[in-house]
């Protein structure tokens, strides 16, 4: 008898006890939610879930990369056999921006060094043309930032849905990586070498861009969208030629030796 009463008592007591456990449950229910919606790597877990676009936190998800990831992507862009943006981490914006900025600096250093070497070898003093720096800033940022944004807009307009603006920026930004060593190697004042290096760099970066943008273009329903590739090729070769003419063309006034 008393044993049965006791079990009933326990059952009745269990309900107030369960009320206590509800206090713990919201924590357990909320806990996985930020982890799921926050960054892929789980570093910036204290970020608000929904952010408006003028907050810095809104853009943190595109800067959520490690040093190794960025270096690996830069290296892979010079060896464009495989599409590198298909990794689990998705495109980032750190790499493109600082690749372009480094390229500007490399162009500045190489052209100024080449001009001083040329003036030293031809033994006539020349001053560095400072406007080349602003030309480099304009050319590189327009081709690396404004053009991909424009291309993204055009692609959206022509019905390619699977294309994000970050992806476009990432493709064009990382694609310019190969120009950094090229710019530094073009200090060597040998015209044939410079032309060869420029051609090589143009082909490598073009191959990288086409390799990454073509699968996106192929998702469109109409086949004619793929003809955009021709526009990209022409645009890229034009930029390569202008880089060669503007920055890699300091020659010695008289032949060496």
């Amino acid at each position, binding site marked *: 008898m008393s044993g049965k009463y006791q079990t009933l008592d326990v059952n009745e007591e269990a309900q107030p006890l369960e009320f206590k456990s509800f206090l713990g449950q919201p924590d357990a229910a909320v806990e996985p939610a930020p982890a799921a919606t926050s960054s892929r790597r789980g*570093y*910036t877990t204290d970020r608000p879930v929904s952010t408006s676009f003028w907050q*810095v936190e809104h*853009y*943190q998800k595109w*800067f*959520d*990369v*490690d*040093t*190794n990831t*960025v270096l690996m992507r830069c290296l892979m862009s010079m060896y464009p056999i495989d599409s590198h943006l298909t990794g689990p981490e998705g495109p980032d914006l*750190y790499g493109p921006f*600082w690749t372009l*900025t*480094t390229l500007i*600096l490399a162009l*500045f*250093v190489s052209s*100024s*060094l080449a001009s*001083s070497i040329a003036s030293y070898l031809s033994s006539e003093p020349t*001053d*560095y*043309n*400072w*406007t080349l*720096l*602003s030309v480099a800033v304009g050319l590189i940022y327009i081709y690396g930032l404004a053009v991909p944004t424009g291309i993204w807009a055009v692609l959206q307009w022509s019905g390619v849905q699977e294309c994000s603006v970050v992806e476009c920026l990432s493709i064009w930004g990382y694609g310019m990586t190969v120009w950094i060593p090229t710019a530094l190697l073009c200090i060597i004042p040998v015209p044939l070498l410079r032309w060869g290096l420029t051609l090589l760099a143009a082909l490598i970066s073009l191959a990288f861009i086409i390799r990454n943008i073509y699968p996106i273009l192929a998702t469109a329903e109409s086949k004619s969208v793929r003809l955009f590739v021709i526009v990209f090729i022409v645009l890229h070769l034009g930029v390569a030629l202008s880089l060669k003419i503007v920055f890699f063309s300091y020659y010695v006034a008289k032949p060496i030796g």
Partner: protein
Amino acid sequence: MAAPNSATLESNQFIVADEEYDEDSIPGYTLPQPSPNGAGPTTPGTAGAGKGKGRAPEQLAPPSNVNELSGRIGTPSGSGSRSPNTNKSQTIAGVRLETRYTGVDSLDEPVTTTLARDLLSIYSKVVQVLWPRRKGQAREVLRDWDLWGPFIFCLSLAIMLSINAPPTQSLGVFTGVVVIVSVGSVIITFNAKLLGGRVSFFQSLCALGYCIFPLVVAALVGTFVHILLVRLPVTLVALAWSVWASVNFLDGTHIETQRILLAVYPQCLFYFVLAWMILIQ
């Protein structure tokens, strides 16, 4: 003497404040002690020794209010019974106020003192940047940031570089240096923020600006010495010093170690551009 009704008491409060300010400068004056049931009978006895009796009802304002008003307005600190502590918190109309005596009365000091204090603050920040002490209060120097130092260093660097540039391009060089320093430090700060660092925006601008100082010295050397064998090592040392000093400030930003290089790299780039401009001037 008798306590008036509350309506007249309310209307008299402003007068009380003015009068009280006058009497505050009398050395022997003691403020009325706060008492809940009307301090009216006691205050005229102490304060109104040389004054007219007509003001006696005015003293009937709530004593706590009198205390606060005179405490905030009256600058002479030697007035007897007031507590000498520098931080005082008061509750006025339900709002809690806290006044601090900063030790400096900058209203009626000579201009030279003000300038000297600002220069001293810039100097102490430069010393902190050039030789960062990791512990103690010295590290807190940059907490009260200013942009005067960065502005001065940026301008002097730009002027020195534009003097050495060919006359047709000096304007472009000046503009270039100013733009690189200002936009560059803003971009670097945002970069550190985007990488997940906890950075105060203006504090970071201040630190990055003060870290230019070694390069300013290098530019000064380069202005007078045109031998490349002297300028090259000086500029390299200045560059290394600038980068080292600015990297020191990344300590407190809590950026993960896997990506700390991503935050350091733009700083290297920033100072390298400036060093390169100094080198090829």
